[in-house]
């Protein structure tokens, strides 16, 4: 048998007997992200739904000045609450989210046909109340428009005179694409799963082997260090891929539990997604495996390696954050950058779009070249005298 395969087999056997590896690579890693994702999606969708249908409680100051107005808002779902002494202070101290104040002259202005002022008191720096403010504004506006139209009609003028232009929205986003906005983080979660799957083995077979003083005896064998490294890389990649596959299957299973029947969330996380995502991720898994081994090889102990790799986990976050913060049109060069390319492809598949063979081919090639480059760097490290000497 090829020495690299001997090393590969031994690393696999040893890892399968390690409860920590099994727990991390084959249970927690693959399950954590889908479950987290499911919870997150339910939370987001649930909150939106809740907000849209729930009565909107608003403290109203001076409700007596405009009983008809309040009645109209009530019909739209507002729930007037009893007034408080100092509404500005109450909002500032975050005791109240939103206060509607009606001035005593409201009735006079209303009857005279002058614009009658109402005040909304809120704190715009609080993100969580923005939805409530918008809802109340919409209610008031719709009542205002309706009353305006009625007034025009009463004077014998067609209300359409007051609306010279109207906009008709023709949104071309597929329902899947809208859903993918929410799933923008999914590629990162997949890459994270691959990272978690291989991490333990990468650390154990490099820094761990050094720490336990078994590296020197190993390297005394008549086997090239490239073979030793190749075996360790393959074992890491296999565990990482296993973790990813289990994770994807979990996603497909969890996909049925997602609140996708809501408008704008028709996503395809089905078997087809699996068939595209796995081959696209395979070169990246190899790159991740050798990169983890490379980073862990700098460490003399397991703990040290853990620190390094913990930081390295943030690297794949960069493309996701970048694409969310600075939305860019996906171009060909982005498809060629490892991590970027895979994230774009996976997002496209999720959005139900076609993926070009050129983009995928380019991504695969560049990723494999990068993996080979890091393999060479790691091999140089492995060939140094310093590495084998544990003490």
């Amino acid at each position: 048998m090829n020495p690299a395969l001997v090393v590969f087999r031994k690393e696999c056997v040893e890892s399968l007997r390690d409860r920590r590896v099994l727990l991390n690579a084959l249970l927690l890693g693959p399950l954590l992200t889908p479950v987290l994702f499911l919870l997150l999606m339910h939370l987001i969708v649930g909150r939106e739904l809740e907000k849209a249908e729930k009565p909107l409680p608003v403290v109203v100051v001076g409700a007596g000045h405009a009983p008809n107005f309040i009645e109209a808002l009530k019909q739209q779902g507002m729930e007037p609450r009893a007034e408080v002494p100092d509404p500005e202070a109450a909002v500032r101290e975050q005791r109240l989210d939103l206060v509607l104040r009606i001035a005593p002259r409201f009735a006079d202005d209303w009857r005279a046909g002058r614009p009658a002022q109402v005040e909304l008191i809120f704190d715009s720096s609080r993100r969580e109340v923005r939805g409530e403010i918008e809802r109340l504004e919409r209610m008031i506006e719709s009542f205002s428009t309706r009353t305006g139209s009625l007034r025009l009609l009463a004077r014998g003028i067609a209300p359409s005179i007051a609306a010279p232009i109207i906009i008709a929205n023709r949104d071309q986003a597929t329902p899947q694409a809208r859903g993918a906005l929410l799933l923008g983080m999914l590629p990162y979660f997949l890459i994270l799963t691959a990272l978690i799957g291989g991490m333990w083995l990468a650390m154990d077979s490099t820094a761990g082997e050094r720490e336990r003083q078994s590296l020197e005896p190993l390297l005394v064998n008549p086997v090239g260090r490239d073979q030793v490294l190749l075996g360790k890389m393959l074992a890491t990649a296999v565990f990482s891929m296993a973790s990813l596959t289990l994770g994807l299957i979990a996603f497909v299973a969890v996909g049925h539990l997602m609140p996708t029947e809501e408008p704008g969330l028709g996503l395809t996380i089905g078997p087809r997604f699996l068939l595209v995502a796995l081959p696209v991720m395979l070169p990246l898994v190899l790159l991740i495996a050798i990169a983890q081994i490379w980073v862990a090889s700098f460490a003399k102990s397991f703990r040290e390696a853990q620190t390094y790799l913990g930081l390295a986990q943030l690297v794949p976050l960069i493309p996701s954050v970048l694409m969310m913060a600075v939305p860019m049109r996906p171009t060909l060069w982005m498809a060629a950058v490892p991590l970027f390319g895979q994230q774009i492809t996976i997002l496209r598949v999720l959005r139900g779009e076609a993926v070009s063979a050129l983009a995928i081919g380019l991504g695969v090639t560049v990723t494999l070249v990068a993996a080979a480059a890091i393999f060479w760097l790691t091999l140089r490290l492995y060939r140094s005298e310093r590495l084998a000497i544990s003490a």
Partner: protein
Amino acid sequence: MIEVRDLWKAFGTTQAVAGVSFAAQDGEITGLLGPNGAGKTTTLRMLYTLMQPDRGQIRVDGIDAASAPMEVRRRLGVLPDARGMYKRLTARENVEYFARLHGMSALQAHERCSTLLRSLQMEALADRRTEGFSQGERVKTAIARALVHDPHNVVLDEPANGLDVMATRGLREVLRGLRSEGRCVLMSTHVMQEVVALCDRIVIIAYGRVVADGTPEALREQSQQHNLEEAFMRIIGAAALEGAA
């Protein structure tokens, strides 16, 4: 047979080995004796091709280590200073792993391993995971690992380190067995009793140099001391004076 000629090695400004030469013959146990930090481990590491000497030549069974390191490794059985095991593998699996790395088939590895574990009286341990092995059990496993490819030359770095009296005795038996099979055995130690009990030839290293080389009797004569320990102290002391001068 192992021949070392004019070996030099420096780490930064520290000259760890400065011109070591000696030869270890077949059918003999050669002891590399010297205080801690004398350069024994570095010399052995260059010998089993883990390190590159700055200068000098190493030949194992006449084969040059610099030009054919793989062939040299095949002819050497090594018990390094570091003797870590894979604790989630059994003793047998640990030894078989190395057998496979030496190119044996699964069947060959299994048979060789069984023979070896029997001759080292390790059958009771063989299928236990090495996690929780005592120091002596670990050294035994490491020796089995070093001998798995039936090497003609055996190099051991401080083999008796951390062993109790019983385990040390067992180790001596093993080494004498190897000698009687006509193998070339080279061991480093800083323990005088080991040398007295085992070695046919003693190479004393201090300050990275060979300060004496000969049979125990020759060394006693050279230093005009009856007691070998006194002889050792005298020779090292002379080397220190020389080094200071």
